[in-house]
């Protein structure tokens, strides 16, 4: 009889003892997961702010640009050296893939910010391998690392192109014409890269490629407009337009 059985079950019962152990294991795992989710949310927010900051490099004052890049660099370093390190140390003794979904959004946002910084700073993006080195840690003589899936790297790059699109159009807004062509070509290359990838069953990549395609179309239209408008002025002036961003301190009154 069920009722009787239930009432005779006490904490010494073998099954109950087993399950008390299971409870402990499940609770610990759950708590660990929740903790990483929270850490990841903080990372996401900070990276969004860094991206925001990086957009203000859209200036001709070289000093300001440098200052902004320096600040971004420092804050990115804090994220790898503190925030991600905390996650890595929590997961030190566990299969990271079990918790990977908990920090994937923070990681992708970080890549977006980092790659944006790299592009602005040195006009290129580093390989997965060299970025992966940031996630190798050492503490008290013990070495450990954060799992950094290549897919997150690629998806972060896809998001990054959205920021490039914003930058390209803002550039035009402030008259920074040559940057548009450069940025647009860069995104064309990334788009070509995405077109070449064969990745069965990665739905998210399909979605992001679609967004990327739309961003690229917007940038191409910007370049088109610069070209078609520039076509009406004498050639020597056109050069000025295209290179205007290189003549930082010069006054070019009367023409623009």
């Amino acid at each position, binding site marked *: 009889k*069920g009722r009787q059985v239930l009432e005779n079950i006490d904490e010494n019962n073998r099954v109950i003892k*087993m*399950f008390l152990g299971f409870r402990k294991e*499940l609770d610990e795992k759950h708590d660990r997961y929740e903790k990483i989710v929270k850490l990841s949310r903080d990372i996401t927010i900070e990276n969004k702010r860094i991206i925001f900051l990086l957009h203000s490099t859209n200036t001709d004052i070289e000093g300001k640009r440098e200052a902004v890049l320096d600040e971004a660099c420092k804050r990115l370093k804090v994220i790898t050296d503190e925030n991600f390190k905390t996650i890595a140390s929590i997961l030190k003794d566990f299969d990271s893939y079990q918790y990977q979904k908990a920090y994937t959004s923070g990681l992708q946002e970080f890549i977006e910010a980092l790659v944006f910084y790299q592009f602005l700073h040195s006009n290129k993006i580093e390989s997965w391998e060299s970025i992966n080195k940031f996630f190798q840690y050492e503490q008290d003589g013990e070495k450990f690392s954060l799992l950094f899936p*290549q897919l997150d790297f690629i998806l972060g790059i896809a998001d990054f192109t959205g920021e490039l699109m914003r930058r390209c159009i803002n550039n035009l807004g402030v008259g920074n014409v040559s940057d548009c062509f450069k940025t647009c070509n860069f995104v064309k290359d990334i788009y070509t890269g995405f077109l070449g990838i064969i990745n069965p069953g990665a739905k998210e990549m399909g979605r992001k490629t679609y967004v990327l395609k739309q961003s690229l179309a917007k940038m191409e239209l910007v370049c088109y407009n610069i070209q078609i408008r520039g076509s009406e002025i004498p050639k020597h002036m056109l050069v000025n337009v295209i290179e205007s961003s290189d003549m930082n301190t010069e006054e070019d009154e009367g023409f623009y």
Partner: protein
Amino acid sequence: MSSDNILENIFTPFQECINNEQDVREEIRNIMKDIEKPLREIVTTLQIIHRTHNGEEISAACFAARELFESVRAGYEKLDGVVPAGQYYRYNDHWRFATQRLCFLAALIIFLEKGFLVDKETTAQILGLHEKSRLHLDLEDYLMGLLNLATELSRFAVNSVTYGDYNRPLQISKFVAELNAGFRLLNLKNDSLRKRFDALKYDVKKIEEVVYDLSLRGLVPNRGEVVE
């Protein structure tokens, strides 16, 4: 950065990474076929419990099932050699479902043979998942297997009455009540395990109805007999 550099530094390594992963998955899928075949045979073998009251037939089925587990263990052995270290949870979608079913079958065999609940360690041994370098038995898969067991036992309780075995439902009732008490200790979050656990109450209910039907008719055997 030239177009070629982007391709070379970024996309080519990524494509390689995907290709590697695909190859691993392909291998895993092939090994899983080797595991799923004996799995299906064990299921069929143990279906005998719904068709006979004969203890010897059931013992024989358990014996046959245990032999089939040999192939299962061989399969996991091979799998252990294929899954990359530290990436259990990257690929476990491929074997999760089969493992849960096998946990259920192991637990059913132990119930039929010994009458008690198999523990996780023993289950891992039966499946061949103990002391592996890359594989292990996931707690949630084991628990899922136990929930499947309760469902099978509720059907078993009904059919034993059909075959005139009035003792079995009481044994099942006690067994599942303990299981139920165990699960009620767990704080499950809103995942598949929680969902599956929500259905446990219907199995408990069904079993209790059978016991109730027997009680009404005075068909409940002397309690002494029930003890396993």
